[in-house]
């Protein structure tokens, strides 16, 4: 592996973003707070029944397909969907988290390419929120900002600004809020870009030309508090490597040249976990300047399929293309255990307390219990949603929020 490092700042100290405007317990973006897929102290059931309503707090109908996951902000659940024979009708919906009542529904027409693979949907990226606004992004490169009451703040049709962006397979990179901007990443053959849009005004503050190859990974935010220059930053992943960029101007702070996967996104929690030839683990916090681009651990047996890695403490969990859940330990640099779940997975699982909630594409869920010392995982619950589920679930307000193409459920005791 050829590594190249460019380091404009003498020391970098990064920790996951703890979003300032967000209430504790919200699930404001793809994979939740910090993008780690780790919930709080929510007390979730291990068993439920959709058909009998057991441990199903409510069910809401959705107007179109969606590979996006729900997000939860300030007692409201927000979901995107897309519909129509041309897949060009874009939806944003808000529901009361407690009752499931639909609060509002906004619709728009796509301004960019709406074509996508039959598995996917125009509503593939999970929306993000800064606590005041919802940023709904779509495969068609439409970015729409609404306040929590559904009032339109601004709209960007980014394919109008970046002609040729996107492709006929569909994009799915989810936006991320970092500092004063919302960052979107759209990479395909044609016109690839990353753009940082002022979250209040909708103006583009900076953009970057990106590799012209299909990439469905999502950017990750890095909190200003933990960077040496006290500036928030964003991590971008592609087949050409990993880049850390200042959020206010896009300046490159760190570049690691390694060939990353194009579907599962990297995860950061003390270490940087990059889906690349299995998993590569980088110690960009405490390693010396010369060593930040050298993996401290590379494990080919931790090969993520479509779901992104889940990381908590020194444990990493990945689900491969065959539906096998594998746990690795960064502390001991070894694979600890495997559990065969079965089926094809698109949704990234979520960890709540000592339980990992995994849902395969057929809508079958597995609740995996983790023992105290991390030496074992055991399936303690299996439940059927009975519908295709591709979007990653959210955990908030003592509930697990799961969406199919037709329904949104709150699973709760």
């Amino acid at each position, binding site marked *: 592996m050829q590594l190249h490092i460019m380091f404009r700042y003498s020391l970098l100290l990064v920790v996951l973003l703890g979003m300032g405007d967000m209430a504790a317990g919200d699930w404001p973006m793809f994979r939740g707070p910090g993008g780690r897929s780790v919930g709080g102290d929510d007390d979730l059931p291990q068993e439920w029944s959709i058909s009998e309503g057991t441990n199903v707090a409510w069910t809401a109908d959705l107007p179109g397909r969606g590979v996006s996951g729900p997000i939860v902000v300030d007692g409201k659940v927000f979901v995107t969907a897309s519909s*129509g*024979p*041309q897949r060009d009708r874009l939806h944003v919906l808000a529901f009361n988290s407690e009752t499931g009542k639909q609060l*509002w*529904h*906004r*619709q*728009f*027409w796509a*301004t960019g390419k709406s*074509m*996508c*693979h039959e598995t996917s949907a125009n509503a593939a990226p999970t929306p993000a929120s800064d606590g005041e606004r919802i940023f709904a992004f779509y495969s068609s490169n439409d970015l*729409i900002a609404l306040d929590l009451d*559904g*009032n*339109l*703040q*601004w*709209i960007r*049709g980014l394919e*109008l600004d970046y002609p040729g962006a996107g*492709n*006929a*397979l*569909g994009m799915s990179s989810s936006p991320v809020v970092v500092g004063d901007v919302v960052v979107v990443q759209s990479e*395909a*053959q*044609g016109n690839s870009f990353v753009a940082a849009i002022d979250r209040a*005004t*909708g*103006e583009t503050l900076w953009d970057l030309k990106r590799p012209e190859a*299909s990439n469905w990974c999502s950017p990750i935010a890095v909190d200003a508090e933990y960077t040496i220059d006290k500036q928030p930053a964003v991590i971008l992943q592609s087949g050409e490597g990993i880049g850390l960029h200042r959020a206010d101007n896009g300046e490159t702070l760190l570049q690691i040249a390694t060939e990353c996967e194009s579907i599962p996104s990297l995860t950061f929690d003390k270490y940087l976990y990059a889906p690349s030839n299995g998993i590569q683990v980088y110690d960009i916090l405490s390693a010396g300047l010369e060593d930040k681009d050298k993996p401290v651990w590379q494990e080919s047996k931790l090969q993520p399929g479509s779901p992104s890695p889940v990381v908590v403490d020194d444990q990493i969990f990945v689900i491969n293309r065959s539906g096998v859940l594998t746990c690795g330990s960064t502390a001991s640099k070894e694979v600890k255990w495997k559990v065969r779940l079965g089926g094809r997975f698109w949704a990234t699982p979520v960890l709540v307390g000592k339980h990992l909630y995994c849902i395969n594409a057929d809508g079958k869920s597995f609740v995996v219990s983790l023992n105290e010392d991390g030496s074992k995982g055991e399936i303690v619950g299996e439940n059927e949603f009975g519908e295709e589920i591709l979007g990653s679930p959210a955990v908030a307000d003592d509930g697990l929020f799961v969406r199919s193409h037709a329904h949104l459920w709150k699973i709760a005791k």
Partner: protein
Amino acid sequence: MSSSRSRICLGLSPLLFVLLMCAVSEAKTTESDALRVGLHNLIVSVTKGEQADAHSEWQAVVDSAKVSDLLVILGAMGRPNELVEPFEGPESLGPLAENWIRAAVDTIAEREIENNGNLPTKDLENFVLDASHSPRARRIAYEWLVKVDHSAPERLLPQMFDDESLELRYDALAALLAEAKEATDDNTKIEKYQRALKSARDNEQLRECAEALKELGETPNMAKQVGFLTDWKVVGPFDNTDRKGFNTIHLDVTKIDFDAEYEGKHGSVKWKESVAEQEDLEKLGTVDLNEALVEEKSVLAYATTTFVSTVDQEVECRWESKEATKLWVNGEEVAVKNVYHSGGGFDQYIVSCRLNKGPNQIVIKVCQNEQTQPWTRPWDFRLRVTDELGGAIQQAK
């Protein structure tokens, strides 16, 4: 006027009554003017890309508008220049401005239903039926009408088989196809499927018609119906190693010489005839270059056909190819798509172009790359000439 209000008016002097009515009328006019100015400013701000101003104007319109203003707002989508004078916005709204207005209408209508449980159904229906309005505005009106009047689709859709709103047309034909499917005698089925086929623009609906008619013993010429061009001449393979052939000039596309020989990847190559698929609905209109020339990686080919136009006209060329393509019409390069194996579909690419009355030369360059995965095997394209709604434009006989 309500009876109580009438009684009050009767008690007033005629002069006072006239003055009062004038004041009410003026207040209404002022409110209406403010709405129109607000919409105008919103459109201008969106057009200039001034998002913050657009939001302020949008919020003011939404906060002040009454349900009776919905039609004014919808009307602005198709006739923005009737809002105020002088009008400083564009003659027709772009997609972003349409979305801003859609969001305003949805917000106001949603609020009205939440508060009062109803909408002005008759006005909405009249708006839907007035084809002079913007197709998208009519679609919005239809969707809100249907929310409060569930009988509206049955009443309105049979009038919309040829609607300029492809969304309304799709729903109308979906209802017609459902009737065809449920019909018990073959003649009725055939009649309904043929009617749907005549107006359908959606690929799935076209296929549904074709498959059903085939089962009923009918043989519609689907390639002609959809507008796929079927008679082509192709030449190749030329070298596309390292994808360098995409920008290499191999022949003069402004002056096609069917007698010429060219230096191909493996020696001399000449133009040869190739007929597009006309039976298999899945591959309808497809020119398979693997079959016509050679199945090989890192190659490219040119294909050309002559389209005889009945008049000088603006048309759309719509094509699909999972490989990189360039398109020329009458020697002018009209599209460059340097994308390999990133998905595809019916009408994957659409470009507007000008046809002259008489013969027009269409040339497409189709480049295969070096990838060897099974899904990268196809080396083909299909192309049709349509109007802006996707209806086939037939050639002169």
